[in-house]
């Protein structure tokens, strides 16, 4: 079992009368890559900023775990932090900035210089190290941000929406870099982009409206919440679409033709010409559906049996 590193306990934050974060608890274990996932306004950034020490919580504690002891405060030397849109001193060069960051973290000058060179090489900025930061692209700035966050070898790397503001190329660069970094250090990052979380992280914490909706190992969650679905693709003709609406309506009102169907299918949703049936048992439901489709002469162009994705789960959890 992995060693706990950071413990967040009953964390809450209110801005005036608005509660941004309402009492969340989680534990980050050493060496894990954890995604803090949630829609915009869920309280991700607030949580991240409290952990980074930029914001004071209204209640609760954040502390590094050292043996049995949970520390409070004084986390800043252990954390490397990168905000959503980092802002540097544009008149400095990339190398100067990382050296500066290193010296602020207490490295002696010569150490800071060698460490900065090493990191810039690492994030692929050594060609641009002597250029002014003002001339950097968004992706380069984000990579510089990673370099400055890593300069003091933090135990925990805290990233706020590391790729949200980037174009596809910059996104790719940063994701690949994170893929490497997560092997060396513990990473906590927030995102509202599910594929990024799936690609990178081991654990997810899904938060919604300031509360934890779901958390755990991503593979575990995927298998635990995986549910069979049947997807129908209809031709866009009037009778077929009408049938779909009518079916959904009957399902909602509980007056389905056969009482059997009601138990098999527990959710129906239509988006354009595709209809999704969440079912409990695939074979029986398929049989029922095919029977009805044939009887109603519905024009089906495709029928697919599959499982809910993490995205479905995410949508379900955050729309509660």
């Amino acid at each position, binding site marked *: 079992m992995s060693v706990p590193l950071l413990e967040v306990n009953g964390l809450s934050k209110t801005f005036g009368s608005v509660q941004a974060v309402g009492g969340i608890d989680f534990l980050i274990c050493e060496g894990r890559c954890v995604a803090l996932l949630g829609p915009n306004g869920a309280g991700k950034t607030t949580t991240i900023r409290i952990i980074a020490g930029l914001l*004071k919580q209204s209640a609760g504690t954040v502390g590094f775990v050292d043996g049995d002891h949970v520390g409070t405060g004084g986390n*800043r030397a252990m954390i490397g932090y990168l905000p959503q*849109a*980092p*802002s540097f001193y544009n008149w400095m060069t990339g190398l100067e900035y990382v050296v*500066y960051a290193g*010296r*602020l973290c*207490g490295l002696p000058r010569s150490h800071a210089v060698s460490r900065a060179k090493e990191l810039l090489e690492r994030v692929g900025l050594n060609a641009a190290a002597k250029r002014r930061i003002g001339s950097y692209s968004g992706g380069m700035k984000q990579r510089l941000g990673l370099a400055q966050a890593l300069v003091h070898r933090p135990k925990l790397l805290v990233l706020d929406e590391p790729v949200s503001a980037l174009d596809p190329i910059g996104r790719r660069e940063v994701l690949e870099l994170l893929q490497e970094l997560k092997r060396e250090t513990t990473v906590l990052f927030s995102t509202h982009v599910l594929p990024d979380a799936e690609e990178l992280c081991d654990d997810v914490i899904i938060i919604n409206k300031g509360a934890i909706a779901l958390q755990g190992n991503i593979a575990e969650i995927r298998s635990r919440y995986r549910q069979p679905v049947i997807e129908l693709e209809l031709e866009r003709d009037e009778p077929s679409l009408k049938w779909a609406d009518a079916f959904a309506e009957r399902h909602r009102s509980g007056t389905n033709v056969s009482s059997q169907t009601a138990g098999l299918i527990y959710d129906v949703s239509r988006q354009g010409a595709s209809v999704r049936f969440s079912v409990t048992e695939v074979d029986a439901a398929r049989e029922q559906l095919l029977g009805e489709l044939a009887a109603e002469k519905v024009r089906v162009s495709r029928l697919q049996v599959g499982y809910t994705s993490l995205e479905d789960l995410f949508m379900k959890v955050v729309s509660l």
Partner: protein
Amino acid sequence: MTSGAARYFAMAQKELLELVRSFKLLWVPLVFVLLGIMQPVSMYYMPLILEKAGNMPVGSVIEIPMPLGAEVLAQTLQQFGTLGLLVLVLAGMGTVSAERNSGAAALILVKPVSSFSYIASKWTSLLLLAWGSLTAGYLSSWYYTSLLIGEVDASRVLGSLLVYGLWLSFALALTLLFSTLLRSPAAAAFSALGASAALSLLAGVFPKQAGWLPGSLSGFAYQIASSGSAGSDRFGWSLACTAAAIAGSLLLAGQSLKRSASVD
């Protein structure tokens, strides 16, 4: 060297580099030198200027007594007190708020540095800018005054320079404080200039009751330049009060930054 001091030095070094790269270390002293030279030169050529520019009837004789060198230096200080102070405050108004507004401050303050060393490093660079500019401007004024008008004792120049420098330092401490408290650089400049002007006015209108306020320092500096002594028993009080006010402003700025480091 303790780690806190090392971090302060790193930050102060960065501030100095910024002064150089933003050319503030060039043009602010240049403004002071220009102001300093203009005063003796324009006093020297005043009769000529009036003759050429004024709508005087032909044949009128203009007789203006040449002022004493010490008076010209006092007038130079008055120039520094208006235009010079304005330039310094404008140069320093965004020193904290601009970094906070852009988010650059958040990236620095999230590191294990204290908000007080952050403020102290800013203060160091502002002091260097103010004292460097004042010295350059005042010395060039002294040089031209002695060339064109008359010699002035070095002791008077030095005394008035130190007192006036303290006044500028006080105004910049206010600028730094307001730059930390307020989000808008323009509001910070306005508040700092307003507060300095109000203090000066207070000390000017009620010299007996308000003579110990920092606002009376500029008056004392003029006195020292023109007559050689401050000529008031409140001078010492005023020095002490200013030093305390500067320390108070810096502590307050550091404290407020510490409490609201989140704002970026």
